[in-house]
């Protein structure tokens, strides 16, 4: 099976005053075309830096040392020239961030920002063509009056609307891979549920692969086909979503699951302090891609 994204033995270290600090200790992760894969972990576990390496952003930082293999659609992101990596962003791969309102430019209209994204793929597109395509995308994310929204600035729209605009914008160039970093965490639960369902349907329709980064296990369960659990820069468990949720094999995954309050009211669990069990070897469930 060929992978759209294939990460092997990825290490990341930051140079600081006290020398090198390693934050990723050899990550293996792969995504097939059209597959929805979640990377779950707590803050500081290395989720977001992994996404930034896929985007080729950390490779350009002077104090970061990245080693390992990152293959995207057959090309090696690690050895690629800087300008080739830049050309991939916004066209072949795109990203959705946690807070939609602060990731849109407040000084341009939504229409202008759509045009900027579309011209990354085709610099010769005129405004009318951009608007037509943007209208189409906004309709796909169930925005009622796309013409008005295109003329609006981000601050004139609600958080939920901005999140939909972000999704539409991220998918407008038909990317092969969408990186979603905690999408919707800043939104109300019902709006979050709606946007996730919408995103789920859209990526399915367009056959877009997704790397879904989240700390929210409930959201992951609803969105992903396959899950990687990351703890302190190591993948501790991976497998199909059902297997992970029905029979978590690693002590850390079990602690995470136990710690989530339940609406069935099981009471508040006693959470173990950080234990050596959390550093136990990786548990791999069958049925996932290797």
């Amino acid at each position: 099976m060929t992978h759209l994204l294939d990460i092997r033995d990825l290490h990341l270290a930051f140079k600081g005053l006290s020398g090198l600090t390693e934050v990723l200790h050899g990550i293996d992760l792969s995504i097939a075309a059209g597959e929805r894969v979640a990377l779950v972990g707590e803050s500081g576990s290395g989720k977001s830096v992994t996404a930034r390496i896929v985007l080729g952003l950390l490779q350009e930082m002077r104090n970061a040392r990245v080693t390992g293999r990152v293959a995207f659609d057959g090309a090696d992101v690690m050895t690629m020239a800087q300008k080739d990596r830049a050309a991939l962003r916004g066209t072949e791969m795109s990203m959705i961030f946690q807070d939609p309102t602060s990731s849109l430019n407040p000084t341009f209209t939504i229409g202008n920002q759509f045009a900027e994204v579309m011209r990354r793929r085709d610099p010769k597109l005129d405004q009318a063509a951009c608007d037509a395509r943007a209208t189409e995308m906004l309709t796909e994310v169930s925005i009622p009056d796309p013409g008005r929204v295109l003329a609006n600035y981000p601050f004139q729209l609600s958080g939920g609307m901005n999140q939909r605009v972000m999704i539409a914008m991220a998918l407008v160039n038909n990317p092969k891979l969408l990186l979603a970093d905690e999408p919707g965490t800043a939104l109300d639960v019902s709006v979050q549920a709606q946007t996730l369902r919408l995103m789920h349907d859209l990526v399915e329709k367009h056959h877009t692969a997704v790397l879904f980064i989240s700390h929210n296990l409930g959201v992951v369960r609803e969105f992903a086909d396959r899950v990687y659990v990351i703890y302190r820069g190591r993948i501790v468990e991976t497998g199909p979503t059902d297997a992970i949720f029905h029979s978590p094999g690693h002590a850390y995954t079990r602690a995470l699951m136990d710690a989530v309050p339940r609406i069935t009211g099981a009471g508040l669990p006693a959470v173990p302090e950080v234990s050596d069990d959390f550093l136990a070897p990786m548990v791999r469930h069958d049925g996932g891609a290797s």
Partner: protein
Amino acid sequence: MTLLSVQNLTKTFQTPSGPVHAVRDVSFEVERGECLAVVGESGSGKTTLANMILGILGATSGEIRFDGATLPAKRGPVHRRAIQFVQQNPLSALNPKRNIGASVRLGLDTYAIGPRADRWLKVEEALEEVGLPREMRQRAPSSLSGGQRQRVGIARALACEPELVVLDEPTSALDVLVQARVLRLLNDLRARKKLTYVFITHDLAVVRNVADRVAVFKAGQLVELGRTEQIFSAPEHPYTRSLIGAVPVVDDAELELRNKLAEGT
């Protein structure tokens, strides 16, 4: 016995685009020792309500009674001490230029709690009570983890020996393992110190496990108020059902309950 009583409380903000009714004719009571959860989406008036209980905002009409007496618009030190606040974002709630000890001590000095000579000892006891080492009083807020900072926020509120604590999304900025520990701590402290909580949150799974009763707000109005078990077994208002229907769940029992409640059958 009723500790807090909110009667026909209304808050209207005048804005250039017309009046905004943030809280509309809300009435409820909180018993001493109880944990009342206030839930709703952003813009439902949860925080405005908290600000009125704390005396940060005055009401447009209606009244708030505390321990039998009407709370004045301008609160004196007795009431400010008795009603304490734990905020959502513990980093912005702590003065970055003060060490932890000084932040916790501020309330003790302001309300002249205990003899001056004993106050550092009291600060250390307050830190210990929330599971932090005494030495932490020397540290700066920026050197603490999110969970430690939230514990400091709790210690600071409790050092003032309050009767009522208003908690505004106290764990929503925390990781799930840290959240579980802080929630247990809050439960223990409430039992041990006979505290009363008004617990504001949008997380219904948290509510299920910490609250005695739940008040559901929508667009400034109280749409449902009931015992926690009742809300999570037979929610009556369609809005409550839709809120429960949107909760992300992790196990099959939850999924079954959620789908059953969301349908309202």
